[in-house]
């Protein structure tokens, strides 16, 4: 489903080129549960952004669902982000002036889905994530766990084929973090590809496939059976 070959991404720090991704070759099949681990600056977030089409490689080839992403226009990439990819961020990234329901509705609005259909899907998402009581609250009035639930509801409302989570529990305490992981893993059980970036070993170990990164290179790539 995800096919990366010879991907390179460099940043310039002063006059020095820093390899965020150095000749990455990676294939992820549909429905896989993958964790990407590594220390800060290892390039794991850059890899996730690149898979999520937020970043472009300097060289290399990237195909998602058989579509060569590197050839697409900005508008076409936006459409793929909309329809195939769901993002979950460490700091939730909810729009502070919108209610929980409105935040969840955002991707539907961007896709131009009619109001009646939107309301139906938001209502069912609120139910799925146990947020009915919080639908009209703004992010500032929600707890961290509730915020991340809103963010996951938003990431899944378009029924994407892949969920990309960047340190999804990084701002949550252990108990709430575990609940959030349960939610994400439930999505995986329903067939969604789940890719999680973390530097928490325990969390990374829950994934069926663990990729270790350092200095922009993939060091380890281990798979084990579902537990």
């Amino acid at each position, binding site marked *: 489903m995800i096919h990366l070959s010879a991907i390179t991404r460099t940043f310039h720090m002063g006059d020095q080129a820093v390899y965020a991704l150095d000749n990455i070759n990676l294939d992820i099949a549909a429905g896989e549960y993958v964790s990407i681990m590594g220390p800060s600056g290892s390039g794991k977030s850059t890899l996730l*952004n690149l898979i*999520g089409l*937020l*970043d472009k490689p300097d060289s290399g080839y990237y195909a998602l669902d058989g579509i060569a992403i590197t050839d697409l226009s*900005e*508008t076409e990439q*936006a*459409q*793929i*982000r*909309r*329809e195939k*990819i769901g*993002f979950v*961020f460490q*700091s939730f*990234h909810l*729009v502070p*002036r*919108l209610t929980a329901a*409105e935040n969840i509705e*955002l*991707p539907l*609005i*961007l*896709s*131009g889905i009619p109001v009646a259909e939107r309301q139906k899907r938001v209502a069912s998402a609120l139910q799925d994530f146990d947020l009915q009581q919080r639908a009209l609250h703004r992010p500032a009035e929600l707890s961290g766990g509730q915020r991340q639930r809103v963010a996951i509801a*938003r*990431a899944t409302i*378009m029924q994407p084929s892949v969920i990309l989570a960047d340190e999804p529990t990084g701002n949550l305490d252990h108990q709430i973090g575990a609940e959030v992981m349960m939610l994400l893993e439930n999505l995986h059980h329903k067939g969604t590809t789940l890719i999680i970036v973390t530097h928490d070993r325990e969390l990374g170990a829950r994934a069926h496939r663990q990729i270790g990164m350092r200095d922009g290179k993939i060091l380890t790539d281990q798979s084990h059976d579902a537990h």
Partner: protein
Amino acid sequence: MTLTDTLFFSFKAIVSYRVRSLLIILAMALGVAAVIILTALGDGARHYVINQFSSIGTNLLVVMPGRAETSGAFPGTVLGETPRDLTLKDAQLLGRLPQIKRYAPLNIGVAELSAANLLREVTVLGSNANLIPIRHMKLAQGNFLTQGSAQSAQIVLGHKLAQDFFPRSQAIGQRVRLGENRFLVSGVLAPQGESMGFNTDEIVIIPIDYAQALFNTTSLFRILIEAKSHNDIQSAKQAILDTLKQSHDGEEDNTVITQDAVLATFDRILHALTLSVAGIAAISLIVAGILIMNVMLVAVSQRTAEIGLLKAIGATTIDIRRLFFAEALWLSLAGAMIGFMLGQFGSLLLRLAYPQLPAWAPAWATLAGILIALVTGILASLLPAGRAARLDAVIALSKK
């Protein structure tokens, strides 16, 4: 993203940033209101002056002695001569011209009016019976120099004078003394108030012969002439000049001004004034536009994370650009509408405060004010909207 959603989403953004939005709308509204009120004032002044000037007569020409020339020295000054005076004979000659409906010779002076043990100085107009209709004056009572009484010592009193001198009794038929002569009050003017800075309520009108005797002169101050129709004005003017030149031994030493020409001049001057005032007010609109741009730029940097998120969940650069564009549109639309209402309200207050001033903003000014508001608002949003659309999603998201 559909158009409705774009408009709705940006509307919600405006409502959430209440103070910011209200300040921008206020700036826009004040600009539009300034355009409307100032042009209402300018155009009202124009109408006021034109009404005043129209009210003094119809198809009016005024003959004055003397002539302003720009070419060379005035011959009279070299020879020690003064320009020839206008005389009653001149007036009668002009009265025979085919283009002319009627004429009124005019002398103006000041004399003491006394009656019933009261005394005051009054402005005296000496003329003939035609003065009343030519100058659009109205008699409340009586008449002035009607046929058959052309040589009698009649006097017409202004409304206020009649009231002051004869508060209890009928003024008509009373005898008054003006200077050394006694006059019979034959009419009282209807109250007219000020007209061209000249209060007709406090004047008296006597026959021209008596006025010339009173002021000891044979020359006329003015000859007022009414042309037969609007089309006759130009040929009447030429005929008057020719006639007077002939009777003054070939010397062109008189000036004829037409009411039309003066009106047109006033109209032009005051129209230009209105335009320039509108232009100054429009500058405030452009300032408001720059304010919108500034605030939108701040909004873009404040909402960087939001823009990054929108991109991450699939907003295209066009979507983002349109969102900010729509925000500016809402702001300037609201500003224009509130400004329109403020402007109309201000004009209304002006009209209430100065009933004589028809302070209505002309349609072109209102329309221009609103259009400039919308256009500057939209233009001002282009730069911030473009900047928002170009934001790099990864960097935008990493900002808190």
